[in-house]
Structure formats: C-alpha cells, structure tokens
C-alpha cells in the first residue's frame, strides 16, 4: 500500500530549494494570531475543532462506559444528564458545524476558484475569534457545572432548569454570529472572486457543497439565535414567554428550534457530500457520472431541507395534514441524497479506480450513510415514527448520518488534503488500519442501538431495564474501539506532519483546481495568475495537459 501514484516526486529535504509557502512565510505567534490568510485561518479552525472533537468524544466515552450496567456504572443522574447535554452541544456546534466548512472550506474554497483569498479576509479572522469566544462561553458553562436540558433546550424544562442554561445558550448565540459571518463571506467569495474560466458549472463540486451550506447557515441561524435568546431570557428573568400558564406555547418553541435544527443537519452533511464529490472522481480517475445532478441536488437539499422540520414532532401534537405534508417532504429531500449516492457509485463505472485511505472512508461512508439514510426514510414514515420517536433507534439513525456520514467525510478530507495542507504524506499502511478500525468500532457502537430502540429503550435514560444490558455492553465496547482508532489516527498524522515523505503538488493525480498549485501553497495561493485550461474532472487527457 505504500506505492505512490504518478505526480509524487519525493525530494530529499537537503536538496529541495527553499520555496516560500503560507507556512514558512512567518513563524511568530503573532503572525498566526493576526493572520488574514484564509489558509492559516483554516488551519486554526482545524486545530480548534480537533480539540473540540476530543472534548465531545471524551463525553461520549464517559456516557457509553456509564451505560455498561442498568443502574449506571459511573455517574449519578445529575452528572449523566449534564454529560449527554454537553456531548450534544460540543459535537453539534463546536465540532460538526465548523468542522468541514470552516476548516477545509476556508483552506480550499478560494484556491478551488482561483482566488487569492476570501472576499472579506478580516471578517474571516473575526469570525474565527467569535467562534473562539463562543466556545469559551460553552466551556465556562461546563465549568459552572454544565447544562442539563439536552442540546434541544425544550421549554418549559429549560426555563426552570437549575443548571447553567444561560451561559450555554449565550455561548451558542455567539457561535451563531461566527457561522453567519463565515456563510456570508463564502457566498460573496463564490459570486465575486472566481478566476477567469471558472464558471458556475466548472467549479469543483466541493465549492457547490460549501455554497449550499453557506446559504443554509445564513438563513437558518438567526432563527436559532432568536429562540435561544428567548430561552435565556425565560430562564434568567422568568418572563414566561413559552409558559402556558401565561399564554405561551411550549410547542411553538419546538417549531422554532427545528426550523433551524433540521436545516442544521444539512449544514453538517452537505460539506461531507462535497468531500466525496471530490474524492470519488479523483480516485476513480473519471468525471462524475453527472456533475449537474450533484450540483442541483445540493441546491435541492438546501431549499427543501427548510420544509421538513415537522418530522421531529409527529407525537408532539400535530394535525394529520401537517404530519402527512412533513412526511412526504422529508421523503423528497431523501431523494436528493439518493441522487448523489447513485452518482458517486456510477462515477466509478468505467473509471480507473484505486484504493487509498480516503477511498476506504468513502466505502465506509457509502455503507453507513445509505444504511442510516434509509432508516431516516423509515422514521419519516409517520406511523413507524410513533414507536421510534425519542428512542435509541433515532439515536442510532442520526449517529449513522452524523458520525458514519460527516465524521468519515471529515477523516477522508483530512487524509485527502493532508499533502496539500502540510506538504507531506501520511503513512498509507496506518491509514488503512485506522480507517478499518473506525468503521468496525462505529458499526459495533451504533448498530445495537437500532435494536435497543426497536425494543423500546428511550433515549436520555441514565438507568435502564436489565433486559437491555447485553446490547448496551456491545455498544460500549464498540465505542472504545472507535475512541482508540481516533487516537491512533491523531498519532500517525502527527508523526507524518514532521517526518512524512514530501508530497508533490499533485500526489493523487487529480484534475481539480487546488492541485494546480504547489503543496503547501504559497502565501497568495498561486505563484502566477492561474489558468485552468481543463475542466476540474477531465480525465480524458494525461496530467501533463493540466498546465497547458
């Protein structure tokens, strides 16, 4: 597995002429802290989100270990409820939402469209610091004992919860500004900064995915901000804005919350889809089976995704008409995902397919995402959801999408663009082992949870009936494997960062536009004005034609 494709030219360090890159242009802390270079900001995001993943992952391991025994092995109910809440909040807002768009999107989007930077470089830096301040608030809330409402903050419980609700929602409120600023920045960048020749339908598909994500981020986040503001005010000043005794309606809160949080699911999965729309053509050495199908289904998900939120509320008091409408719209949005899946698979047909770590992650993703997506269609079937709602079936379903989908895509992106970002190659052998372990650990963790949900095990239970124990034990063992494989990944990537072989400009022999520039890229992305003669997925001609 250590053979390297055409395009990689290992150059001994002492012979390599010193070339100025975005990494070695300056070394001071200040040069990183005050940088407006989108690549450095992307790296800052990457490092911060990895720390957040470690935090959220530690909570996950605590929860799983606690659930080894029916009475709970580690914590009391107070601690358990705070832990699952903080696990959700950290994973959703501090890791999942910024993970691919803010880290890889920042690094790659301007390069992929041949731009020097994003449209508003200083706003870009500001949005990183807003993210940092928001994250800090959430950590302060954690230090104050954490919040125990669940990441959904359902009223009226959140209005009276004795835990640190106010600092938590305030932190998320701040994070929202960062999300909006990044979204607006990317939208303007895509509209105004494309280099000559990069038309809308010649943009790499990752750019389409980030563009669709940015639209959702910008439109949906304000609704979340408003709802969380009201939750904070209710909790702090007891205004009772959702209190039924004073004319409020707790179910209205759920509508507001899911109006944001269902599209937020697409904020998390669209970038993942964008990653594989790059990985699959590159390693299949073939054009996508239908560029337009992927681009248009991205927009379809972005817009139809706004009209499906009610499927979270089939048992919260909903008319038959509403339930039927939300049910059919949810199935429609699944069609767009199905289009993408078939397009990726058909892309491999008549290609020249080679397996590398990102491609192993694609296979894992394909299995987990299709499996998880199909259980999503099942839960969108109203009568079936009545039994599954708020059970472990739903927990398994969304972890198949969020972890099996987004986390595998994030790991694929980390490996695929590692040579571009660092200029070095990771160990393909370790990558293969770790990817296989991630898949196995994930499957062992979450597959038993479908069966737990079928059996009627409600979620967010600190204690449970002993009949559920065997499946819980299997799930916990799986989580340890998953945790260990993530640590292993961190380990060999850190080693590769310092001792990995030098990667050439285009180690994967890709035609996509970020591979036109050296690895790591120079400060202004391209040494001279880029000329993209070929389509980003044109594999009908050899690599030499890339530069004219």
């Amino acid at each position, binding site marked *: 597995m250590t053979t390297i494709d055409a395009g990689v030219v290992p150059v001994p360090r002492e012979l390599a002429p010193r070339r100025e890159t975005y990494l070695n242009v300056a070394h001071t802390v200040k040069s990183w802290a005050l940088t407006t270079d989108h690549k450095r900001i992307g790296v800052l995001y990457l490092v911060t989100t990895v720390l957040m993943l470690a935090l959220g992952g530690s909570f996950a391991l605590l929860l799983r270990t606690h659930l080894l025994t029916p009475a709970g092995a580690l914590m009391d109910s107070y601690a358990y409820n705070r832990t699952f809440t903080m696990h959700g909040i950290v994973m959703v807002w501090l890791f999942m939402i910024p993970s691919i768009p803010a880290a890889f999107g920042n690094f790659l989007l301007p390069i992929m469209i041949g731009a020097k930077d994003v449209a508003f470089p200083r706003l870009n830096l500001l949005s990183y610091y807003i993210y940092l301040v928001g994250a800090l608030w959430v950590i302060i809330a954690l230090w104050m004992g954490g919040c125990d409402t669940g990441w959904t903050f359902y009223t009226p*419980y959140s209005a009276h919860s004795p835990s640190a609700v106010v600092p938590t929602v305030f932190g998320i409120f701040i994070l929202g500004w960062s999300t909006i600023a990044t979204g607006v920045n990317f939208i303007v960048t895509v509209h105004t900064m494309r280099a000559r020749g990069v038309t809308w339908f010649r943009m790499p598909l990752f750019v389409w995915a980030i563009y669709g994500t940015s639209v959702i981020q910008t439109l949906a986040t304000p609704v979340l901000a408003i709802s969380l503001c009201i939750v904070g005010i209710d909790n702090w000043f007891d205004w009772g804005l959702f209190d039924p005794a004073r004319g409020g309606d707790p179910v209205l809160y759920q509508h507001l919350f899911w109006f944001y949080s269902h599209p937020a699911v697409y904020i998390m999965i669209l970038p993942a889809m964008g990653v594989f729309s790059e990985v699959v053509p590159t390693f299949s050495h073939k054009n996508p089976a239908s*560029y337009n199908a992927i681009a248009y289904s991205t927009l379809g998900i972005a817009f139809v995704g706004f009209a499906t939120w009610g499927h979270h509320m089939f048992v919260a*008091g909903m008319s038959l008409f509403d339930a039927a409408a939300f049910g059919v719209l949810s199935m429609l949005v699944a069609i767009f995902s199905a289009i993408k899946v078939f397009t990726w698979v058909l892309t491999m047909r008549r290609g020249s397919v080679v397996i590398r770590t990102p491609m192993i992650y694609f296979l894992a993703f394909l299995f987990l995402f299709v499996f998880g997506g199909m259980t999503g269609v099942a839960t969108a079937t109203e009568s079936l959801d009545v039994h599954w709602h708020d059970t472990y079936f739903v927990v398994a379903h969304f972890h198949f999408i969020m972890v099996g989908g987004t986390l595998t895509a994030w790991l694929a992106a980390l490996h695929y663009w590692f040579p571009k970002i660092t200029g070095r190659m990771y160990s393909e052998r370790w990558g293969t082992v770790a990817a296989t372990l991630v898949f196995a650990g994930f499957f062992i963790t979450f597959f038993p949870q479908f069966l737990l949900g079928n059996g009627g095990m409600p979620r967010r239970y600190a204690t449970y009936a002993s009949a559920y124990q065997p499946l819980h034990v299997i799930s916990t063992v799986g989580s340890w494997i998953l945790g260990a494989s993530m640590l292993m990944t961190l380990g060999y990537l850190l080693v590769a960062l310092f001792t990995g072989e030098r990667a050439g400009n285009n180690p994967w022999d890709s035609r996509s536009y970020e591979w036109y520039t050296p690895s790591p890229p120079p400060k202004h992305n391209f040494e001279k004005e880029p000329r993209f003669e070929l389509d980003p997925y044109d594999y009908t001609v050899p690599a030499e034609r890339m530069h004219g």
Partner: protein
Amino acid sequence: MNDLLRRLLNLPPQASTYARDVDFLHYFVITTTMLGATFVFLLALYFLVRYRRRTPGETTVRVVTSTPQEVFIIGSILSLFLVFWVVGTLQYDRMMTPPPDAMTVYVTAKQWMWKFSYADGRSSMDVLTVPEGKPVRLVMTSRDVIHSFYVPAFRMKHDVVPGRYYTAWFEAKAPGTYAIDCAEYCGVSHSRMLGEVHVLSPGDYSSWLDGHPPATGDLVAAGRDVAAQRGCLNCHTLDGQPHIGPTWVGLYGSQVKLEGGRTVAADDAYLTRSMMDPQADIVVGYKSVMPTYRGVLEEPEAAALVELIRSLQTAPHAPSITLPKVTTEGSALPQEPLP
C-alpha cells in the same frame, strides 16, 4: 414469519390492536431499504474490482448518465417512498383518532409520576388498569414540563404537554402487564418515570372494579353535583337555553365555531381545555368572561363534568322561554337567541 421477524428486530410483543399492522409496515420498510442499501454497496464493490486501476496515470473516457437513466432511478426510488408514505399516513390517522365508543381516562403527568383519573372519582398512581378488548381514550396533560406517554408493547406514544390536552388511544389485545416509559426528557429522574398498564380480562376487570369501589356510582349525577357546587350552572344551562355561556345540551361531539374563524370538535380534550384555559377558545357570540378552573377542579371532577356533558349529547332542547334575568355586573347576554 411475523414472530420470527419480530424477534429478529428485537420488537416487544404486539399487545394493541394496531401494533401488528405497524410492525408489518416496519418489516416491509426495513427489508426493502436494507436490500436497497446492500445493492448500492455491492454495486460499488463490483465497480471497484471491475474497473481497478491497471496502469498508473491512465486516462478514462468521459461518461455522463443519460436523462432516461436518471429519471428511471429517481422514479423507482420515489414510488417506493410514496408507498411508505401512503400506508404510514393512513396508519397514523388510525393511531391518532380514538374510536367514539372508547372509555376515557385522564392522565396527568408531573415530575416524575403518572396519575390516572377515572370519571367515577377513582384515581391511581403509575398503574393504569384497563379491560382487554375495549378502546381506551387517554386525555393527557402535564403539571410541569413536557413528558411523553410511551407504551412500547402498544407501539403507542404521545407527548404530554402543560397547558394542552392531547388525546391518545389504544385497545389492548391480551391480558398482561406492559411497561410505561416517559419518552421526553423531563429532568433528573427522567429514566425513573416509569409505570405499568395492567390489562385484565373482562371477568377480572369487573372483580377489580368491585374491589375498588368508585367514589361515586352515577357519573352523570356526580357531574351534576360538581356543576352545581363549582358554579358552572350560573352561566351554562342543561336545558338547551343559551345563557352567559353556551348550553351543554348537544355540545358533546358537535362542531363549535370559534372567534377568529376556527372550528373545533367538542371532544374530551376540548371540553377540558375550556375549563382550564377558557380564554384559549372563545365561542362565536359569547364574551370571554369565564375564569380559569386550573387548580380549582380536580381531574375526577373535570372528568365527571365531561361525562355529564356527554350524557346531554342527545337531550332535547327545551322550548324557547324568556331568558333568565342576569344581575351579575359585567356579564353579557348572548347576542342571538336560539330560533
């Protein structure tokens, strides 16, 4: 086959009348979607082997899926999904609509217990006792935060929300004890908010009734007493005459026109909500003068009132007479007398 699939999927027994049908849809949906997922994955593996790279750097021909191919793929998936949707919606309608002959039990949830109140004045904590083979309508509300009434063996779940009266129903098929879980996170002891449904055979149920004498024998008479003691009859009549509030004759089950153009069916949930939160729905032609009875009426009292109103469903309207003289200050007469 049913039993094999049920065990394979780790589903609990099918103890309600609709559980079996829901499970059959479950089997169909899971089987077809899992076959679809497996097909996609195997297809990818086949392409991976069949089109593996043979020489580094080789080029490929440009292939784009044709529109008929795309329409075929999308069309077949969409029609499968629509089958799920149609069957699922019909089932959902059945699961959410109680039959008219169902017996009513009031469910009051609070942190972290379930209280079941019957119209005859009895009530119990955490144990709901019902006869087999009779539909049971649950009228549910919460005293504090949102809970969710979940009986896995019945495939039944509904949120229980403060300030709202939701109706859910089931009909148990076989005697036995079935677990009740709270399915909506409700605070520290959420995982200990458990209860049981005791389903008894008709014979056992009547001996259980004998062993638990109700507080009152005649529910309608009990309702009449409550109505008199609580002052309901100052504004509502039992003979069909409109007064300060709408008459109770013929009210149960009718379609009530509300201010703002809405129409609502006068079921148990609506009637109870009108007692507890009278300002929520104002009947066309009446002023909003009724005080709330939240915290005043006990659940069995509310249930007895509903039974009284139900008994007046088909009572004849009295002949039109001169309206009683009203002296209460600020009260209003109905704007239109009945024809």
